[in-house]
């Protein structure tokens, strides 16, 4: 168990270190997310006062789109220079590699979410209530998105058409996450935190399910797929 955590931490730190040095996440994915949010505001015309009601949905659509890029990055770093073979030969447990990679994506997405949330407050004039609900929702939803993204990312990793295949696979699977996270945010931001709990639970179940699947299957996928 300790070995597993150590392995996971190794992969986690490795992925984050690559991201910090390559600056793809900071310089491209995060600006992309903020840009999408801005574009939504243009499309919906902020003067109409519609934005506060749709802000939670837009927020999570943005995170979902950014997550596709983050997953793409996470897989791309393993497919260059035979890194994948290195990973396979490293003797690290498949489940630990999965946890490490998911952890790195979660960390990246959470950074984006904090920024977006600040952006949402500024752009959309929503009040910050129910911080606890917001935090739990963000954690559970992001873990679910990162877990499914990593599973499908590695499934599609050998394909020449990976960039187009991953969104087609991940977006329908994560539809419940989008729904649940948007609803929970809506409740929390409008001061009705109590209504958010069923959704937070749903997000938790989703995350637990796909983390388990990924943990069990990742080794085999890395070997055979």
């Amino acid at each position, binding site marked *: 168990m300790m070995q597993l955590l150590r392995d996971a931490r190794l992969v986690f730190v490795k992925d984050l270190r690559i991201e910090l040095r390559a600056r793809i996440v900071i310089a491209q994915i995060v600006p992309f997310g903020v840009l999408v949010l801005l574009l939504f505001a243009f499309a919906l015309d902020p003067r109409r006062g519609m934005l506060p009601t749709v802000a939670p949905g837009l927020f999570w659509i943005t995170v979902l789109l950014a997550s596709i890029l983050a997953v793409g990055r996470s897989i791309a770093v393993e497919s260059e220079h035979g890194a994948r073979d290195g990973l396979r030969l490293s003797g690290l447990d498949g489940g630990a590699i999965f946890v490490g990679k998911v952890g790195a994506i979660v960390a990246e997405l959470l950074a984006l979410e904090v920024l977006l949330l600040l952006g949402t407050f500024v752009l959309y004039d929503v009040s910050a209530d129910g911080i606890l609900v917001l935090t739990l929702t963000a954690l559970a939803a992001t873990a679910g998105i990162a877990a*499914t993204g990593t*599973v*499908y990312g590695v*499934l*599609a990793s*050998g*394909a*020449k*058409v990976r960039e187009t*295949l991953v969104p*087609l*696979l991940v*977006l*329908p*699977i994560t*539809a*419940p996450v989008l*729904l*649940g996270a948007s*609803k929970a945010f809506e409740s929390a931001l409008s001061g009705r935190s109590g209504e958010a709990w*069923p959704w937070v639970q*749903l997000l938790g*179940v*989703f995350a637990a*399910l*796909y983390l388990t*699947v990924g943990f069990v*299957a990742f080794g*085999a*996928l890395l070997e*055979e*797929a």
Partner: protein
Amino acid sequence: MSVDLHMPPRRARPFLGFAALLGVAATVVMGLFVVPKDVAQGDAYRLLFVHVPAAWLSYLAFAVTALASVLYLVPRTRDIRWDYLAGASAELGVIFTALMLAVGSLWGRPIWGAWWAWDARLTTTAILFFLYLGYLALRRMGGSPEQRAMRSAIAGLTAFIDVPIVHFSVTWWATLHQDGSVFNEKMQVHIRDTSMQLTLLLGVAAFTLLYVYLCTQRVQLLALEEGMAERELQAAIEERVARSGATGTASSAPTTDPSTSATTAVGV
């Protein structure tokens, strides 16, 4: 590998196909000409005889895909033919889901007054359609048959466990937003007319036969496609051997005829 995926046997297949054709034809005749008009919906309800069987089939097909995926993943029952079955069944599932959505939409326009409604069941089905569209795209991505089978089996399983979550979340969402009063009528249909009931049953039976027939044909086709490259190689080797061995050393030729060995490997 004691699993036999070749039910029904080859000789029975034309009969199966014929029975499916007959069943579908009978459903068309019954649905269009024999059953009476509905009091409330007029002729539009006749779409039900396609819609309900298609819906049943798409669920059946996706369940078969999930089951075949599990059977491939379990080492004891691992067999490449489970992968063929999963793929064939998912293809049919996607086709029947599209048919169900299209027919439902055609029916919805005159009856609900809208082509589409954000009803829980509709939304779930739409997501299901895209889920399996992605699954089929993943299957086409290349690699060795074993790689494809492994990837597809995991994808098939992960897609299937998402279905209840999608349904649950969408139901919750839809009921929070709107009372499904109008739409629920569809779920609470009471069919009193015997000929209508019979036609519906006939439709379900005919579509099921059609599914079994198409699925077996597709599995066989997938197996043949897979074996094709191998057989071409075998034929090329044999040709080369025959040419170089023109002096009369026939003993260098493979002992088994490649076409028969391939056929038995496929297990037709």
